[in-house]
């Protein structure tokens, strides 16, 4: 379980998250939604021990993320940050292999090699595993980073806007892959999304942030509603139920 107890974060003196308390039990997909600047990335990077807290506590499986040895945490928690240019001349396969680093510390075993191949196939990257990262399209690079996060083999995966730059085919594929990972391996996935419909269709739980506070938290049926979305995004959004899912028509 990921648990946040009255977490507050300030960035360069500006308060960004206010007193957030949340419990994310094992398993399933939790989507985090909210307008730009709501604090979604800050929330993810605080859980991933990348942004220090002003107050409060964050534990993953009982380990305080700011006190437990970072190397142990890397075996239970993987993070794909929002924008992180991959420096260096790396091939796709090498990048995904780095995801196994917490387990092999630089000397991959047969198991690691097999798991990397599985990750590459899962994210449809096997055909381009020999390509250099800096020759890929934005969407291909994004999938490579997601595959690396997956290859880390942790119980918890945090993904910050993984659908950025993905076309509709691969956005859908990625979400379905993650759904399958959550269902078959019992891994917990926290994912920041801008596409409300992907959140509604694939997530078990949706947390809506605005101005550093949680304004809604629950299954799609409770969060993807005109009144709630108005409170989150500041304008009325029509919602229709299609195949039993609440679909937002925000472009109307």
């Amino acid at each position, binding site marked *: 379980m990921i648990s946040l107890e009255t977490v507050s974060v300030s960035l360069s003196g500006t308060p960004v998250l206010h007193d957030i308390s949340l419990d994310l039990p094992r398993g399933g997909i939790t989507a985090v939604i909210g307008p730009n600047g709501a604090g979604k990335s800050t929330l993810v*990077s605080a859980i*991933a*021990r*990348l942004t220090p807290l002003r107050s409060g506590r964050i534990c993953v499986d009982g380990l305080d993320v700011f006190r437990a*040895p*970072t*190397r*142990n*945490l*890397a*075996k239970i*928690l*993987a*993070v794909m*940050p929002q924008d*992180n*240019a*991959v*420096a*260096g*001349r*790396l091939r796709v396969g090498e*990048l995904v292999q*780095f*995801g196994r*680093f*917490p387990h092999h*510390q*630089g*000397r991959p075993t047969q198991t690691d090699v097999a798991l990397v191949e599985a990750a590459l196939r899962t994210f449809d990257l096997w055909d381009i595993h020999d390509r250099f990262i*800096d020759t890929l399209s934005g969407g291909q690079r994004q999938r490579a980073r997601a595959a690396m996060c997956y290859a*880390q083999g942790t119980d918890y995966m945090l993904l910050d806007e993984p659908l950025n730059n993905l076309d509709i085919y691969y956005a859908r594929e990625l979400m379905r892959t993650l759904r399958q990972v959550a269902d078959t391996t019992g891994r917990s996935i926290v994912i920041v999304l801008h596409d409300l419909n992907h959140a509604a269709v694939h997530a078990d739980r949706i947390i809506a942030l605005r101005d550093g506070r949680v304004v809604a938290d629950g299954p799609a049926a409770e969060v993807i509603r005109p009144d709630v979305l108005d409170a989150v995004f500041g304008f009325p959004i029509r919602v229709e139920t299609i195949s039993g899912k609440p679909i937002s028509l925000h472009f109307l």
Partner: protein
Amino acid sequence: MTVNLRGDLWFAMELRSVRLLALMQVAVSVALSTLVFQTITGNHILTPSIMGMDALYILIQTSLVFALGGLGYAGLNAQSKFGVEVVLMAALAWGLFLPLLRYSHALVLVLLGGIVLGVLFRSLSSLLARLIDPNDFAVVQSVSYADFNTVNGELLLPGLALTLVALIVSWRARHRLDIVLLGMPTAIGLGIDWPVLAVGLMLMVGTLVAVSTAMVGPVTFLGLLVVALSRRIVGSDRHGPLIIGSVLVSIILLVGGQTLVGSYLGNALPLGVVIEFAGGIAFVLMLFYGRRL
């Protein structure tokens, strides 16, 4: 190194082997410090000299000449002068980098601080240079360029020991350095203790630069040239091959260059100047062509 050897063979052999070892020490330490510095700062066109350490070195020399005069300066005990230089330059590097342990996001600020201090040191040196006797100024000028010809044998042993330790430390950190190249957030996510690793290695870099600058003088562009060349040759950003590659390239460049300059150009053109020139050109090319170079 026996090209054109004449006269007392033993004396010359000893002199040359001391010089050879010193050159190799400088070569290794420049290659390692630049490579590690570039990885931690995530920038392939930086060299550790951005931290203002060579400027501090020149300021130390200028102040000494200013205080003691050219003759007094020449009469200084080489070993204690070396010791003081290393301590001062290392203190600068440590003072700049230790705060990173607490504020790991402040790397850019640290680099900026180094640049500003460098400018300050340079202005102070030129102010002092204006105040000293023109004859003494010639002394300052001659020590402001790397000099690979006159190497003090007594300084060799501590320098060699330090460089060897740094080589072992970098080699053992090679896999973690590969991860550091992915950027701080990803590296931490993969279980790298970023502040400890980065600060530890930066302190090592600072000490290496301090030692090699105190040994031969400022070698700003040598590291840039060496690491860029070896990236080209190795064709990968993996630190295992890169460490071996850049150390070898550096040794070949310095030792080979010194042999060529010493034997065929009759020392008319100091190696330091040649290397700075080539390094400067490489730097400009890298700015123009970016990663493709």
